[in-house]
């Protein structure tokens, strides 16, 4: 019974943390953007603009929720939710650390909700579902640019998820398990997979950027050519849900990279494991934001040719070479 | 516990719903989706038998079914695109000629 209660508490805690994460992340992203562009970023709301995300949140909550007259009303309303649910469901199997003993009640707690036998497959499968929200949002708007955004998103997702999964297979072959916990345990003591799978890491990182629609692969919401892409017709909280999804996806992709390639919570002993884990995730999030404000966006045909002609053959070759070495 | 017969009845129901989609609808897309539904109902059957008879063959076979279904959809949608490019018809009754 107490196990069940504990799982419930863990689910609530993780959900709340993940729900609140986009607030600091938007602030950090805007600050980093500002400083890269030799600006200050948000500065007026609160000291150094630290309350800006709350101001944005309040603004988004009180804006009018517009449904276009010719939109498919039901799908239009439900699409942001469809986008959001998988982004949260991914966290069901993501481990944050080994067992810890709670200080006061002296009770051992696993720092994960569940350790699935099919962990990494589950994460990839569920992460792939979040594209539905984008496609349906684009289609249900009944408007040209969102439709193009949705189309681009679906094609992009199909072509990059292949490379993403194949990049994982190298790791799985080394570790001999699909469970994320086992993968992290196998890397303890500086046997990080990035050392054994550098090509896999690069492919996973690039395909991951495409999977979470970040620059240089953010074609579905390309401001330059599509207005705002799939969420052009959205306003108020529904728009906020899409933004939320994007940031949560960024966090989960960073976590996945850390778990698969950067050793999870492995690190020198002077800091507890969970802190190493968070440090690595924060660094990856920073790198993703940094990339966004450094590189221009790829053209659509370039995106497709990178996915199919470079990343996919490269990941297959990576699997082959890994297999040969293991044998 | 859930007895095996429940799973089989569920799978039969889904199979019949899928069949009715194939037989009653004239939209190619819906027909394709119904075919997918039929294949999946068979999968339920296979996995259920695999569990109740403690035999892995059912699961293995359902993996093959899923694979073949994916291939089938890729080909079918390719044909559909080619068809619409030439004829602009989604209704199976309108597609009668053999000379594409």
């Amino acid at each position, binding site marked *: 019974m107490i196990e069940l209660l504990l799982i419930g508490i863990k689910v609530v805690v993780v959900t709340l943390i993940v729900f609140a994460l986009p607030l600091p992340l938007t602030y950090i992203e805007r600050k980093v953007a*500002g*400083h*890269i*562009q030799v*600006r200050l970023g948000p500065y*007026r709301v609160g000291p150094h603009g630290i309350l800006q995300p709350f101001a944005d949140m309040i603004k988004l909550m009180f804006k009018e929720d517009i449904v276009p007259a010719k939109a498919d009303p039901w799908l239009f309303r439900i699409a942001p939710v469809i986008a959001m649910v998988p982004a949260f469901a991914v966290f069901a199997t993501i481990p944050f650390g080994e067992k810890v003993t709670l200080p006061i009640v002296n009770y051992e707690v696993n720092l994960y909700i569940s350790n699935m036998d099919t962990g990494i497959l589950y994460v990839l499968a569920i992460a792939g579902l979040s594209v539905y929200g984008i496609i349906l949002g684009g289609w249900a708007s009944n408007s040209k640019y969102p439709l193009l955004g949705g189309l681009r998103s679906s094609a992009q997702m199909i072509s990059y998820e292949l490379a993403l999964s194949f990049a994982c297979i190298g790791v799985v072959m080394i570790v001999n398990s699909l469970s994320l916990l086992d993968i992290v345990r196998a890397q303890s003591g500086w046997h990080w997979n990035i050392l054994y799978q550098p090509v896999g890491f690069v492919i996973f990182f690039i395909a991951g950027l495409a999977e979470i629609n970040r620059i240089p692969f953010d074609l579905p919401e390309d401001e330059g050519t599509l207005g705002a892409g799939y969420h052009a017709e959205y306003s108020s909280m529904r728009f906020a849900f899409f933004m939320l999804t994007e940031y949560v996806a960024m966090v989960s992709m960073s976590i996945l990279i850390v778990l698969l390639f950067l050793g999870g919570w492995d690190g020198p002993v002077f800091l507890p494991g969970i802190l190493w884990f968070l440090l690595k995730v924060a660094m990856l999030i920073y790198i993703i934001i*940094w*990339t966004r404000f*450094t*590189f221009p966006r790829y053209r659509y045909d370039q995106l497709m040719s990178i996915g199919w002609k470079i990343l996919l053959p490269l990941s297959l070759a990576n699997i082959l070479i890994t297999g040969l070495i293991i044998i | 516990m859930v007895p095996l017969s429940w799973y089989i009845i569920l799978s039969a129901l889904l199979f019949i719903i899928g069949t009715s989609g194939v037989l009653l609808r004239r939209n190619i897309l819906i027909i394709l989706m119904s075919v997918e539904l039929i294949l999946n109902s068979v999968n339920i059957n296979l996995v259920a038998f695999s569990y109740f008879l403690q035999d892995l063959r059912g699961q293995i076979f359902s993996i093959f079914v899923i694979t073949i279904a994916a291939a089938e959809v890729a080909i079918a949608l390719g044909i559909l695109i080619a068809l619409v490019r030439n004829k602009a018809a989604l209704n199976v009754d309108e597609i009668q000629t053999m000379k594409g």
Partner: protein
Amino acid sequence: MNGNHHNFDLKGLLKKVFFLDLIQGLFITFNYTFSKTVTMKYPDEETWIPYRRFRGLHTLNRNKEGKELCVGCELCQKSCPTQCITVVPMQDTTGKGIADRVAYRWEINLLRCMFCGLCEDACPTEALKLGREYELAGTSMQRQLRTKEELLTPQAIPGEFEGGVIVKARLETDETGIKIVPDMSVQKRWW
């Protein structure tokens, strides 16, 4: 390796394989992240004092004895492309002839003014000058109708001041609108 025949570019290939160009780009933006920002903290902490050539809110000048320079010739009104200036002249009661014509009313509707400066060019006595005040936002339409008395009061920035600097400032809000009070003691160039 057939490098000699096809002019094989090993360096270029290595650059591509190891993303050297991309990493170089990342380092450039990383350096910018920690460079000094150029943003002016207007209106909370800093404000911009424009150059003298700036065309802001109109000002009506007086001569050294404190007498209004405007003679009510109505040339500014005639030259105004948006017809936002209203001038009603009157005879000076001291009785010194045509040269002592003064403006009875001199009003400008800032909602319509586009700060082209043609009125300034047309003025024969250099009475009218476009000043350097640019914080003209207000909360009422009436506030945007500026009369002679308001325009005759000298502006915060003295006319002989060169300008083109950033100074410390303080934001003040009252019922007429917002005011940015410059503190001319600390000045810095914006570049």
